[in-house]
């Protein structure tokens, strides 16, 4: 019983410290927000955490550059392509950055450094440890803080003469149009399909150019939409992709420098548009393959007369419900599949109990090899989902062998349990479906169930020393 009392005491202690941490984070957020708004009269608008402000004052028109600005921007001022005229245009330009992640961080950094007049920074999320390898405006001390506030605080140290407006919330159909109208150029640095359609439609309705970047794994893509009579995102993609075909950075992975490169090129195009040079990617897509070290320029279709939003007879004349349109969420970090009914699934707690009771079974880990290399449960049998999907003889034979071996330890119970695990509990459900269809003749009666929440649930609920990724 002494152990039970100790557990209660430790639980209470953890809770107390977590409360304390939360309080500290809130205070830090306030301090950082205060800093980023300190030099502008309208500083209070937008820097508070809730914030989609109704109206921003126009940026002051300057007839000439100050001596301080001349010194600061001298290396780019001497470029005939930019010159004083271009620099003054940058100072009068406001840019809305949608997403302060892997693309938004480098983009905002170079725009701030170059002397853009105002940067609106939208992000609904907070900084997490797994962001730091690519979201380079945030540091270790910023974990738990809103990304928009963290980005603004870092940028202010770089260039305090820019006006930063952090928006700590998701861009939504009810706020997007009003927000986009207050900016001159929009940069889509988001990470999901509904937001891409939302930003596109808002830009078309408000008549703003959209510099759109994306990155995944070792590839990047960039297009400038709705610019000088060119196509919009919907002209290219009238229908959203089926949700099950969309991969995010958490699932697919991304090498941090790849969005870094794409975000920098986005910044370049924003600067060219803002300064009057014009963009190179109107009706063109830039594709970057980091593995091959190749850039490719793709000639795209022109603006489509039958486009639902920018065409001659648009059916989209106001913003819609984009999550319903795309069948996916704009703010969820991971999709949760519900393929199996609850009788075909067990919780990590239930699995732990089975382990403790030494119930004979096979634990099948269906993650790709690269994830198994990161961490694994020692007793698990590993067969990647892809090998099950293609019904690989070699792997199925291996599974059969392992089931037979384990079965020897039982006295021929009616159906032998196989528990399937993956990272989050999506792929494991697909695998259970496949195993349920295996011929009984060859494998004997098998009872396959998946472990809800996968190894990440195991790490958070059962074994805190198990790595999370």
């Amino acid at each position, binding site marked *: 019983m002494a152990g039970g009392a100790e557990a209660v005491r430790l639980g209470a202690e953890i809770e107390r410290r977590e409360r304390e941490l939360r309080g500290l984070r809130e205070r830090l957020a306030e301090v950082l927000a205060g800093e980023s708004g300190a030099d502008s009269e309208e500083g209070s608008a937008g820097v508070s955490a809730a914030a989609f402000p109704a109206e921003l004052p126009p940026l002051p028109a300057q007839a000439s550059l100050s001596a301080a600005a001349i010194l600061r921007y001298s290396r780019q001022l001497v470029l005939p392509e930019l010159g004083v005229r271009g620099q003054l245009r940058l100072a009068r330009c406001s840019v809305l950055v949608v997403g302060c992640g892997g693309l938004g961080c480098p983009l905002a950094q170079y725009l701030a450094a170059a002397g853009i007049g105002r940067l609106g920074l939208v992000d609904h999320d907070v900084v997490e440890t797994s962001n730091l390898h690519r979201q380079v405006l945030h540091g270790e001390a910023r974990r738990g803080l809103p990304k928009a506030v963290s980005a603004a605080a870092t940028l202010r140290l770089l260039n305090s003469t820019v006006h930063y407006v952090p928006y700590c919330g998701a861009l939504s159909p009810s706020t997007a149009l009003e927000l986009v109208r207050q900016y001159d150029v929009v940069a889509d640095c988001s990470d999901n399909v509904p937001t891409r359609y939302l930003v596109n439609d808002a830009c078309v309705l408000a008549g703003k150019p959209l510099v759109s970047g994306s990155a995944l794994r070792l590839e990047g893509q960039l297009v400038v939409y709705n610019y000088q009579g060119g196509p919009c995102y919907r002209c290219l993609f009238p229908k959203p992709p089926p949700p099950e075909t969309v*991969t995010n950075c958490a699932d697919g992975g991304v090498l941090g420098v790849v969005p870094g490169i794409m975000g920098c090129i986005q910044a370049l195009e924003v600067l060219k548009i803002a300064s009057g040079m014009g963009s190179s990617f109107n009706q063109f897509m830039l*594709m970057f393959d980091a593995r091959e070290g190749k850039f490719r320029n793709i000639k795209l279709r022109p603006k489509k007369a039958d486009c639902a939003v920018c065409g001659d007879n648009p059916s989209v004349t106001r913003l819609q419900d984009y999550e319903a349109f795309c069948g996916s969420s704009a703010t969820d970090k991971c999709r949760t599949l519900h393929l199996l009914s609850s009788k075909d699934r067990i919780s990590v707690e239930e699995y732990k109990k089975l382990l403790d009771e030494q119930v004979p079974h096979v634990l099948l880990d269906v993650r790709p090899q690269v994830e198994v290399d990161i961490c694994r449960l020692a007793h698990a049998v590993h067969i990647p989902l892809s090998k099950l999907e293609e019904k690989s003889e070699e792997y199925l034979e291996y599974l059969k062998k392992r089931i037979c071996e384990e079965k020897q330890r039982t006295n021929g119970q009616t159906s032998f349990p196989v528990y399937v695990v993956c990272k989050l509990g999506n792929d494991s459900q697909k695998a259970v479906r496949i195993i349920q269809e295996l011929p009984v003749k060859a494998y004997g009666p098998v009872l396959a169930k998946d472990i809800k929440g996968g190894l990440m649930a195991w790490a958070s609920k059962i074994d805190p020393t198990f790595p999370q990724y």
Partner: protein
Amino acid sequence: VTSSPSVRSFCFRGGAELLFDGVKKHQVTLPSQPEPWDIRNLLKWIKTNLLKERPELFMQGESVRPGILVLINDADWELMGELDYKLQDQDNVLFISTLHGG
């Protein structure tokens, strides 16, 4: 006129290659047929010969699924007649899945 068997190459990018064993560049010999090969036939051929599992992740009906762009010699296939485009010698056909991550 019957076209003779022809060697064609095409590529997959943006994650579309993952549906084809992760192979980005494919070189294949298309069988001879009375009509010249167009993209419609090529897609049909790819579906039967290369795409063994889960064709719905690549195709929808006789075309590619939404979210995949087809490029012919680095130009959007919309500019070239889409499914009806007749393949020429040396044509470079590329299927790219659009990326959404950031």
